[in-house]
């Protein structure tokens, strides 16, 4: 490779790997104990009346200023200036309030004195000892209290533990605080109504608001309905709240949301309920103008918030087809739109739209469309190709094709032909939020490998079965029953390294020893290698390789429907492309190929490249699936036989286990990495590539 090529590749790698997320809002860089802290209520001892606690710690030479403010609005402030090192400070009591337990019949005797001593045993700890008098219904008595403030190792939280002489039973009194102003967010719940004529208007408004507001940091998280295709929405929210100490204030309805977040929004754009695509264009405008999208009936809501219209599409596109609408949008907005990200707001079509990915498109100032990628839809196809041709190579096409216009394979074939990569789906939620939450300090992505480097188990005369779930971790069975009960592999979205690093942490930290993650899908994003220009494919594989290193992945998956699907098309790969993966990913212990069964098989230096031998459809009755797997084992008589299963994401692991348990003693379910190592050692499959017709020579 020429040096200049190496340089270009390196620059591209860096660009693709690290679109550095913006810093979270108001997240102080100070890592020490000094500063302002606020209570994380859900993780602290209950504070009855005041409910909240803020702590401020300041050091001035040998002195400590400690301010504890109990409550917000109606509050009690306890401000102390104390020498460090154990010297006693006498503090007169001026208020009878006993702030941590107002609902108990206890009071501080006004006129009495608190004797307080403070130490700082180390940089991350402050210790207080206090003696005082406390009055109950039976009169005064002496009491002592120890307060210990301890900074967490990563500097993000402060634990405040209280031991009082009068409280000798019950759970320890412990408050967890985070830095004031950090990890504060809003949460919005959306109803399960996505009808253009129904509540899509409200949902689109909220999603556009999210995209705009999150430009200034990860502030707005949306909770989608329980039946949302990305099943993790609630669980990831819990993770941010419980593990990453996010505090969320819920916003109810459009009125409350715009009132709370008005300062981030510059205007509004009106879409036309009678022309569905006007909303798609409105999302483009939303990103460029920081404008929320509204239908006519919502105008009063945004007007009351003081917003002004930046664009009004009512009646604008009446009678226009999508080619004309998007051509108009192209001419008006394209110059200002991102050339690295573009949104295909397809998926559900007709009377329904589920535009969850729009927050990301707005966040990144993307052009939105749902143009057909079907060759016979000549005008839409031509415009789609034009847009894609004007994007930077290896751009990200986010969203999904329109179910009403074309097929997945037509869409991905076209995007791949420009070397772009798809990240689905249109329902992909909260990316503008998750992209800005880094993984926890010091967190390392560690996969559940079952072999030590160099270990190659010897296969027996058996049928070895291994399972991989389709469509990644976020869709499907990850949160459904059975995960962890059998060895199972999951397709990881490797772009999470930069696109949702904390969400990747969420998955990794939940994984059981039986959950093995693999890279996908043909590249850093979904693409068809046969359709990608070879020069770009090499660069794309290099990016995948780097992402896999970060995520500790050593198995990669390919799929190619650019020449049609399994039955009526050809999903196989030619040798030159298989070799590109072998050479481009030297750390990979093996590769898997296909979606439905495919027929490309190879092995190189003990590293197999294997296609799926079985696709478990969610509709397949268990008894028939058992018979299918047993039949494959008979029809492939050599032992060991390696039976690679691709499991549709809508099958949960429980169901899969039920099927595998019935296969009989000859079968053994093994982890994917063990499976590939054995298959590489004793490859009983027959090498097979797609043979392209020889080109005629002149």
């Amino acid at each position, binding site marked *: 490779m020429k040096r200049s090529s190496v340089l270009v590749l390196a620059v591209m790698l860096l660009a693709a790997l690290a679109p550095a997320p913006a810093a979270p809002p108001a997240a102080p860089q100070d890592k020490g104990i000094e500063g302002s802290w606020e209570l994380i209520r859900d993780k602290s001892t209950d504070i009855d009346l005041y409910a909240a606690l803020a702590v401020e710690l300041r050091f001035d030479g040998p002195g400590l200023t400690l301010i504890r403010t109990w409550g917000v609005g109606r509050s009690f402030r306890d401000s102390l200036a104390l020498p460090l090192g154990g010297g006693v400070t006498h503090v007169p009591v001026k208020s009878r309030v006993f702030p941590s337990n107002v609902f108990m019949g206890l009071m501080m005797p006004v006129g009495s004195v608190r004797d307080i001593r403070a130490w700082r045993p180390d940089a991350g700890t402050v210790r207080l000892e206090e003696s005082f008098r406390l009055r109950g219904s039976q009169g005064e008595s002496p009491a002592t209290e120890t307060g210990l403030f301890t900074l967490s190792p990563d500097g993000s939280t402060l634990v405040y533990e209280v031991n009082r002489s009068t409280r000798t039973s019950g759970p320890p009194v412990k408050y967890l605080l985070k830095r004031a102003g950090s990890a504060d967010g809003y949460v919005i719940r959306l109803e399960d109504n996505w009808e253009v004529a129904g509540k899509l208007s409200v949902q689109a408004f909220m999603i556009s608001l999210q995209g705009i507001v999150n430009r200034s940091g990860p502030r707005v998280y949306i909770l989608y309905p329980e039946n949302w295709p990305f099943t993790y929405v609630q669980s990831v929210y819990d993770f941010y709240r419980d593990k990453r100490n996010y505090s969320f204030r819920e916003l109810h309805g459009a009125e409350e949301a715009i009132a709370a977040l008005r300062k981030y929004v510059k205007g509004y754009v009106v879409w036309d309920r009678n022309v569905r695509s006007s909303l798609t264009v409105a999302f483009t405008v939303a990103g460029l103008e920081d404008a929320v999208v509204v239908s006519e009936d919502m105008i009063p809501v945004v007007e009351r918030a003081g917003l002004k219209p930046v664009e009004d599409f009512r009646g604008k596109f009446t009678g226009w087809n999508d080619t004309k609408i998007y051509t108009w949008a192209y001419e008006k907005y394209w110059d200002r739109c991102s050339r690295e990200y573009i949104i295909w707001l397809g998926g559900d079509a007709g009377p329904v739209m589920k535009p969850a990915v729009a927050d990301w498109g707005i966040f990144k100032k993307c052009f939105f469309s749902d143009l057909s990628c079907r060759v016979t839809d000549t005008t839409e196809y031509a415009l789609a190709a034009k847009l894609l041709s004007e994007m930077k190579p290896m751009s990200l096409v986010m969203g999904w094709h329109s179910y009403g216009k074309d097929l997945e394979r037509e869409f991905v074939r076209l995007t791949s032909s420009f070397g772009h990569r798809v990240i689905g789906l249109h329902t992909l939620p909260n990316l503008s939020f998750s992209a800005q939450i880094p993984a926890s300090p010091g967190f390392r992505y560690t996969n559940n490998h079952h072999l030590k480097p160099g270990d190659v188990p010897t296969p027996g005369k058996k049928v070895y079965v291994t399972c991989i779930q389709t469509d990644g971790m976020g869709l499907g069975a990850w949160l459904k029953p059975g995960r962890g009960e059998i060895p199972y592999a999951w397709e990881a979205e490797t772009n999470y390294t930069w696109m949702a690093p904390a969400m990747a942490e969420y998955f990794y930290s939940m994984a059981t020893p039986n959950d093995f993650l693999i890279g996908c899908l043909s590249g850093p994003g979904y693409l068809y290698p046969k359709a990608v220009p070879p020069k770009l494919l090499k660069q794309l594989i290099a990016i995948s390789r780097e992402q896999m290193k970060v995520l500790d992945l050593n198995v990669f998956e390919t799929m190619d429907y650019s020449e049609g699907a399994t039955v009526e098309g050809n999903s196989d790969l030619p040798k030159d492309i298989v070799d590109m993966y072998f050479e481009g990913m030297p750390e990979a212990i093996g590769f898997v190929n296909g979606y439905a*069964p495919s027929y490309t098989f190879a092995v190189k230096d003990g590293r197999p490249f294997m296609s799926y031998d*079985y696709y*478990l*459809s969610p*509709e397949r009755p268990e008894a028939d699936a058992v*018979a299918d797997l047993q*039949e494959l084992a008979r029809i492939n008589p050599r032992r060991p036989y390696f039976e690679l299963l691709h499991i549709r994401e809508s099958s949960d692991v429980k169901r899969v286990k039920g099927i595998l348990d019935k296969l009989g003693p000859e079968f053994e379910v093994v982890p994917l990495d063990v499976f590939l190592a054995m298959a590489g050692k004793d490859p009983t499959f027959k090498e097979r590539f797609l043979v392209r017709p020889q080109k005629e020579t002149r």
Partner: protein
Amino acid sequence: MIARAVALTLLILPCRLSGFPDGPSIDGTWTSVPARSTEIAAWKGRTLGLAISVRGDRVSIVHNWLDRGQVAYADTFRFVPGGKAVRSVVCSVEWPDNWLMGVLSSAGDERTVSGSWQVEGSDIRTVTVQPVVTSQGKTTVTTTREYVLGDGGNTLTLTERRSSRPTPVVLVFERKEVRP
């Protein structure tokens, strides 16, 4: 009156065409009844229809894999019952019986089909020796198919036993029309 005459004609027509006057004939076009059949792992929404014709001593059975009513793939078995196995060259890699499994037809290789009446004109058994390609290479699958009429000739049950499969595939069809 006319309608009744037409209906009567339709009922007796199969017997006359097939040349087996003693009972209903298998000859005709048949549509599947999925609710009474083994779930077939057909590609996408494909359904299976049968077109069976008996002409003199020759029988033709066509398995039509239908995609939205149109024939997407036709698998044809022609033979003389009781006669020699008929050889034909496999033209397509498609193995339509079960797309979930990693099995291809071995295009370019020969397959053989033979058959015999179990009940003259009504119930027939075929045996197909089909070359296929799997991950371990080429092999052959022998499939025995029994087509049995029932319900006075209005239903047909196809029981398919593959040498490689532990359980039979049982498919039930209803007569669609009588082929002229």
